């Protein structure tokens, strides 16, 4: 039972990390109508910036700040240099151009940092277990990730519903010509939204980098999971991204834990582990397929 609660918390942690990725993707799609495959590269850039700064200064907070700044800067740079030319192109051109960006970023990072993974250490004040009510011991760092993720979700909600920038973002989703006609510098707004999404991806990369290793190509598996999340949640909806991310995080973690146990009840242990883990690796895609059959535009999606 304690193990189950721990797995639920792991699922939550995985979910909020996916949310940080999916939020940027879904905002960029909602406001600019752009599909960005290079979002995973921004995640990688955040992780590498954090590892480099942590290695140089030893400060984890500085490393996190560096990941935000580096990913936002890289995001703003590619928005101005490349992405801006793609807004009125079709999705195929967007897919290819951002695929090309992945190649450039991945190989560029490999050139700058080498092929070997870097390691980012969890700071002393966040390491070790923490006791939760009910006698559960849980990793303090993973709990902190959940906290940061939920705080970002709340912050995004307030940003979008309560601030002038949020009004402009929502107006940009609804009618981009109209807000340009109202005298709002639409291209600056786009750069800002893109950089915001990039910063969130970079933050996710840095935080996960301390649990896993920091290496080239770390972003793409997460990117594809973030796609699954926003397909489930509905493209363009930040609320959908949050619900979808938690759903995917829990399904993946609990499936990997529970399915081998469930198969173990009816067959011998070794084949139960094999079948259970093979099936568990497919579970979130099956979840996606089920959501699509029931609601082709996702849980909170409006547009087709």
């Amino acid at each position, binding site marked *: 039972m304690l193990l189950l609660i721990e797995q639920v918390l792991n699922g939550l942690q995985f979910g909020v990390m996916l949310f940080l990725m999916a939020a940027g993707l879904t905002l960029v*799609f909602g406001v600019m109508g752009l*599909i960005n495959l290079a979002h995973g590269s921004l995640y990688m850039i955040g992780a590498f910036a954090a590892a480099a700064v942590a290695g140089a200064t030893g400060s984890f907070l500085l490393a996190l700040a560096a990941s935000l700044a580096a990913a936002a800067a890289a995001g703003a740079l590619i928005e101005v240099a*490349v992405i801006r*030319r793609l807004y009125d192109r079709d*999705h*195929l*051109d967007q*897919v*290819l*151009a951002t*695929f*090309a*960006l*992945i*190649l*450039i970023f*991945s*190989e*560029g990072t*490999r*050139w700058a940092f080498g092929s070997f993974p870097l390691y980012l250490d969890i700071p002393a004040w966040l390491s070790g277990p923490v006791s939760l009510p009910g006698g559960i011991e849980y990793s303090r760092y993973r709990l902190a990730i959940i906290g940061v993720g939920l705080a970002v979700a709340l912050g995004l909600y307030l940003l979008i519903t309560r601030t002038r920038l949020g009004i402009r973002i929502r107006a940009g989703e609804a009618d981009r010509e109209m807000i340009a006609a109202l005298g709002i510098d639409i291209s600056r707004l786009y750069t800002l939204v893109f950089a915001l999404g990039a910063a969130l991806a970079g933050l996710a990369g840095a935080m996960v980098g301390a649990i896993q290793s920091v290496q080239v190509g770390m972003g*793409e*598996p997460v990117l*594809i999971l973030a*796609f*699954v999340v*926003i*397909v489930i949640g509905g*493209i363009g909806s930040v609320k959908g991204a949050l619900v979808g991310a938690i759903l995917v995080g829990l399904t993946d973690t609990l499936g990997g834990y529970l399915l081998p146990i469930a198969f173990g009840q009816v067959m011998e242990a070794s084949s139960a582990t*094999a079948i259970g*883990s*093979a099936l*568990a*690796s*497919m579970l979130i*895609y099956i979840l*996606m*397929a089920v959501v*699509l*059959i029931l609601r*082709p*535009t*996702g849980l909170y999606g409006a547009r*087709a």
Partner: protein
Amino acid sequence: MSRGIAINTAVLALCLAVPVYAHFAGEPFLLTLATRAVILALAAVGLNIALGHGGLISLGHAAFFGIGGYAMGILASHAQTFTPIADWPLLIEGTKSMPVIWLVAMVTSGLAALVIGALSLRTSGVYFIMITLAFGQMLYYFAISWPAYGGEDGLSIYVRNGFPGLNTLVPMQFFALTATVLAAAMALAHVLGRSAFGLALNAARQAPARVEAVGVRPFRLRLTAFVISGMITGLAGALFADLNRFVSPTMFSWQLSGEIMVIVILGGVGRLFGPLAGAALLVTLEHVLGGVSDYWQVYLGALLLGVVLFARGGIIGTLAGRDVAHG
């Protein structure tokens, strides 16, 4: 139009000149590269039917490529260890015969395309891209975590499978075989493009509402195109596995889906000879740039970015002019 024909002839001549040169100069490695280009072109011919004619931006075609590869790997590995694949309810033996393997590869990848297509085609646009990508990734993780056929390490086949009347271990003969298959697939793509089905499919891409108004369901057209497309890419996967005599989950990887799509785009979307030109260019770049720098993909990325931003019809489109796209 004559300019288009001239360019296609030039592409074809160039692609035939390389293996002939390799054969007489005694450079089997060059011939292997040419075979690789032909097989990737075949996969791209498959994708081009869905992408070029149907407008279906599938970023998950590695799924079919991998299924074709594993069809070969599973059949051949059982044949080389003399163990049946299944003995109940009926006995299924492995095989080393290419025609049988091709048939199995096409049927299984066609069935997978039917299921993935039926689910994915409920959506359109950017959803479709993400969903096909996700299904490809699903099979990738399945192949990694399924231990029966090598899991993450993949499967090695010791001797290349046979084709009646040929010695497939001779590089020239295997090349000629793959080139014939490619020619047949291109002929099929050409006939398909001119048929009533192809015209309706193109119409469904350009104006779905009008197609529906004359009583044709775009969903069926697209699903049929997706299945044909998946079968051809699956066949390419079986050949690719035979070329390397090795199958691994990387055949399912999303980078491979991206690579097949890059081939189609570099060559020119919807062009009959586009996949061949694109595959020849990609394999050449891989070989030439790979010799110059370990980080050659940076240059590939820059080139691709240039093509997308400035030369939108790909090689054949840029050379032939925009007027004959989708010919």
